[in-house]
């Protein structure tokens, strides 16, 4: 059904310049890939045994903190973007 396509970029609104709000410590990462599984927006990938965060994450991240919560190595630090910026939810 054409109308039922899910194009996530079109289904998320954002505002402002968030600045950085995710930090990754590669030395702690064991390449398990759970961050990649859990991210709705596909912002984490794994290659050569280590995770990598998209350089465009500030434009796409839903601020769900799923990657931070699931990383047992605690390689991912997450905090919220600057006040008044980031995801805008109208039908939550």
């Amino acid at each position: 059904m054409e109308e039922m396509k899910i194009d996530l970029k079109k289904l998320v609104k954002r505002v402002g310049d968030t600045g950085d709000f995710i930090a990754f410590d590669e030395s702690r990462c064991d390449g398990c890939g759970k961050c990649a599984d859990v991210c709705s927006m596909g912002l984490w990938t794994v290659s050569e045994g280590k995770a990598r965060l998209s350089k465009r994450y500030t434009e796409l991240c839903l601020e769900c903190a799923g990657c931070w919560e699931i990383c047992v190595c605690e390689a991912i630090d997450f905090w919220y973007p600057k006040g008044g910026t980031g995801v805008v939810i109208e039908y939550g």
Partner: protein
Amino acid sequence: MEQYDVVVVGAGPGGAMAAKTAAEKGLKTVFFERGRKPGEKNSSGCGLGQRWWRDFPEIMERLPELPSYRKVEMVVINLVDENNRLRMRSGTTGSNLCANRWPHGMDGASVYRSCLDPFLAGLATDAGAELRTSTLVSDVIKENSRVTGVITGEGETIGAGVVIAADGAMSTMARKAGMRNRWGSGCTLTPQLDFGCDESKLDDVIGNAEWCWFGPFYGAYQVNFRDGFHIGTGRWLRKDWDTRPVDMIKRVMDIPAFQAMARAVDARPREYQAHLLPWMEKPAKSYTGGMMLVGDAAGFPCPLEGEGIWHACVSGKISAETAADALAKGDTSERALTEYERRWKASSLGLEHKFGRELVELWDNSIFDPELMKDQIQLLLEYSMLNPFSIVFDWGDAHLECFNQHLSHFLDLAPGFADFGSRYIKPFAKAVWPENVRRMLLMLKPRLPALRKLSDERYLWTLARASKALRPYIEQ
């Protein structure tokens, strides 16, 4: 440095109720919201249930004014098999017991957070609390292990008699105060897709109902609003996570019966959200020196089905009441704030979590266990045949022959669930009121010739001697 009696972090329902209660008690109160307005960072199912009529009737009375409001009078379960075929659709409004319990009985409400949160925050500002939006609170100020204020993302310092942290599942305040970091276990991720619809078609096709989609996949809810609905589901963030959040939603959208409903109401995907939702056997530690945690920040959502807004409001209110008492006594130490835990544990919120472990384990091993659901569906369907309405439908033979065939099949399937029953249903036996058990046993008494001449008390004691399992109910 500005100084307040109460600083609340987060202007969602928990924060708004805390701020409202604190302001009503005459405390100088400020509440902070990182979004441009309350609600813009939040999403929920979002169905508000019957407890609201008991605890916040003045709020429930006003909800029909909100743009996205839809009354909820019924829940409809859609049960789907592994071929995506709809096998059962069953709904209920609940009985007259429910309808007579409070003025509006079983009516629930659905409203978007973008309507609800500003409304609740408005009640707090009307009561005299100050609201500061677009302000991230990023750290605590501590003196001798007691939280004495907060620091904003812009570096502003705000002094507080008490801090109330209503900043959600990923609570910066809890982390910075050293109470915890990641949950580690007990937290779910809940993806949700909102669909825009034609309001009058939604009225005709669905009416005032909440739907669920259960089957051999992660069970999903469908909360219906004035002109839209949410499809949402969730799963615990554990080592066994092996799916993509969007795929969990797409799984429901693959169901032909879902597609038919969506066509009938002109549904179009409108917005996607994903959130952490603590779904805990028991809540986390909810207080430290100078600070209390409210709502999702403390892991309060319901251990059976993840509802959290009522829990946030109740704990918000209790935290502010505790804050007022602590400030009046001049003691906001961790020991003094133990009172907060005592109060929420004594409330309906605490009662909910008394069987938290059993409720979580049941859900985790049924609705959220796709493999198990493949078999459970057949048992549930056979059970659903054992009533007059279903026997009317099955006239493969004389109706009472059909009834016995279904009963035999149910008895064939049931032993296969003995293990499931003893692990996940039997633990609830201790939750049944002894008075209810005694009444059921006494109803049997006239049918037992050997025992019916005994007095009621003697009869019950005889059963208690014969069955160890019955003793706890009879000895009380």
